[in-house]
């Protein structure tokens, strides 16, 4: 097991190194320099380059860059005078985290509920209804859903605010737009797992012993069905990450995603690269946790290396 963890952590670091290298050389190929101001004399440019280490050989700059990243320093924004990228991330991540967590929790609870109901009422209208909701949630792009919600609930009905972030009611529409995918994934997953588990002999045994039906379902069914839930954490994180980019933009939520989109539009490369690295790190850590938990929860899968995430 220790060897397994070590190799996974090794992979993680290697992947991150590749991404960091990629972003570094990307920054080099992009046109322009932060000091391309015609009012600056060549000596002034020299001094500035000296100060920011831009006249050093590429290899030295590269290792300095990697060193800075390990210290959490992603450079300085072009757009906001002299503000460090990490402070921008720090300031904006809170809102995105709240939005993401809210969608994840709400979505998982609703999805769980839908999935269980669908499995218990297998092949009835309730089941079909839940699966229609799931297909819609998986298929309708989040920006379309966000647009529809903004127009119908926000503008036409006027029930909820359509933009900004000034309280809980402002977070409801963005949360629904983000949670739809979570609900759909969760409902489908739960339904399949529950059907699998409920067909097992130990469920029949539990029923035969005269245990109350809800205890059978919650204690014997749900608990076992929940085990492989870890497998959907990866796709959910990705969807929430990409989701925050568009949903925050549509609802003008001052989160990290909105900043990222804004930076792309204004060519603020240090921020783009910094946020990219930050997202990658987040993603890699989630994948690592998923992999490790997978081995812990279900020892049959462990150590088989290439076999993970296959089959289903």
């Amino acid at each position, binding site marked *: 097991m220790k060897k397994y963890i070590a190799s996974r952590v090794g*992979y993680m670091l290697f992947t991150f190194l*590749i991404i960091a290298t990629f972003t570094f050389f990307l920054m080099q190929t992009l046109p322009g320099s932060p000091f391309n101001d015609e009012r600056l004399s060549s000596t002034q440019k020299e001094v500035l380059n000296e100060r920011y280490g831009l006249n050093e050989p590429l290899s030295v700059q590269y290792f300095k860059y990697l060193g800075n990243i390990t210290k959490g320093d992603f450079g300085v924004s072009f757009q906001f005078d002299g503000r460090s990228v990490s402070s921008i991330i720090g300031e904006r991540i809170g809102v995105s985290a709240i939005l993401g967590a809210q969608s994840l929790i709400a979505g998982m609870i609703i999805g769980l509920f839908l999935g269980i109901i669908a499995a218990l009422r297998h092949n009835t209208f309730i089941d079909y209804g839940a699966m229609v909701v799931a297909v819609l949630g998986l298929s*309708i*792009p989040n920006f379309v859903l966000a647009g529809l919600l903004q*127009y119908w609930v926000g503008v036409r009905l006027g029930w909820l605010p359509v933009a900004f972030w000034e309280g809980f009611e402002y977070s409801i529409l963005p949360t629904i737009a983000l949670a739809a995918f979570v609900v759909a994934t969760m409902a489908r997953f739960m339904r399949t797992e529950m059907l699998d588990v409920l067909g097992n002999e130990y469920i029949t045994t539990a029923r035969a012993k005269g245990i109350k039906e809800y205890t059978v379902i919650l204690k014997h069914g749900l608990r076992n069905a929940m085990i492989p839930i870890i497998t959907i954490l990866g796709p959910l994180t990705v969807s929430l990450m990409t989701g925050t980019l568009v949903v925050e933009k549509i609802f003008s939520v001052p989160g990290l995603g909105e900043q990222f989109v804004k930076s792309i539009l204004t060519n603020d490369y240090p921020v783009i690269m910094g946020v990219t690295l930050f997202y*990658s790190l987040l993603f890699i850590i989630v994948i690592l946790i998923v992999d490790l938990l997978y081995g812990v929860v279900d020892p049959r899968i462990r150590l088989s290396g290439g076999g993970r995430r296959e089959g289903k």
Partner: protein
Amino acid sequence: MKVNEFELTDDLFEESGKEFEEKKIMNRPSSTFLKDSWIRLRKNKGAFTGLILIVLIMFLAAFGPYMNSHGFDEQDLTRTNLPPKVPVLENLPLLGLSGVDIRGTDQYAAKEVTEYYWFGTDDLGRDLWTRIWQGTRISLYIAFLAATLDLVIGVAYGSISAYYGGRIDNVMQRIIEVLMGIPNLIVVILLILILKPGILSITLAMVITGWVSMARIVRGQVLKLKGQEFVLASRTLGAKDKNLIWGHLIPNSLGPIIITTMFTIPSAIFTEAFLSFIGLGLQPPIASLGMIVNDGFKMLKIYPHMLMFSSVIISLIMISFNLLGDGLRDSFDPKMKK
């Protein structure tokens, strides 16, 4: 020759002849894997609806732009922001296809336009019907191109990795492990920053990490199949590696390959639309469905028709492909059906 004192002469036997052969065929009508799957697929209402919708949308994407006389980049500032108006259907209230905008004024009368714009016009007076189907065409083109490239690279990589096994497999799998760890979207965004948005660069950016899942699935299938007897039999008869892979292993993995492709297409359409949305999409005048949706947001409050039609169509495409993909999965492998 004597058996139990009886003489076995030729006239005791009769030739089986063609009749018998025909009878044999009559008894058991041959059915291929694909035929079986097709029969199962047709019974699946959701998947069949999806298939019909896809055919319909593809037909409209191909011929829709020619159904009226407007060009997709034809601007006319005298007819901007017209709401949709369709002959015959305009007489049915509630449908909102009568050329009356959300404040209740008939824009067609106000702007003295006599033509019909089935989906209305945008802020530059371009006909939305033409633009939307043109955009659908481009979105579908990107999606199919990406799916085909994924298919080719993934199948080749996966089958080679699994078939040769050993060290080759080991190295190829390590590469995949690293690629799996890199978030797809990040690579796409970074690549488009260098390559500059265009149909080809967007497709390439999606393919660079997209083929990995196909390769994994093909590898799993080939690994499962290559130990089976028919492969051994074929090998004993002297089949070459190439013939084994292309003649036996890949045809037998066709089910999972088709299913994976079916799910690649909607996700490529989504990624393309998403890129347009964050400002990394195609450049005007060519428009994809995602860009039209994005444009629709600018006027959402006053002219919602721009967003409604494009978003309904993009959603329909996604839903149809997902339904068809689910249906195919069930029909290729009925054991999986729940």
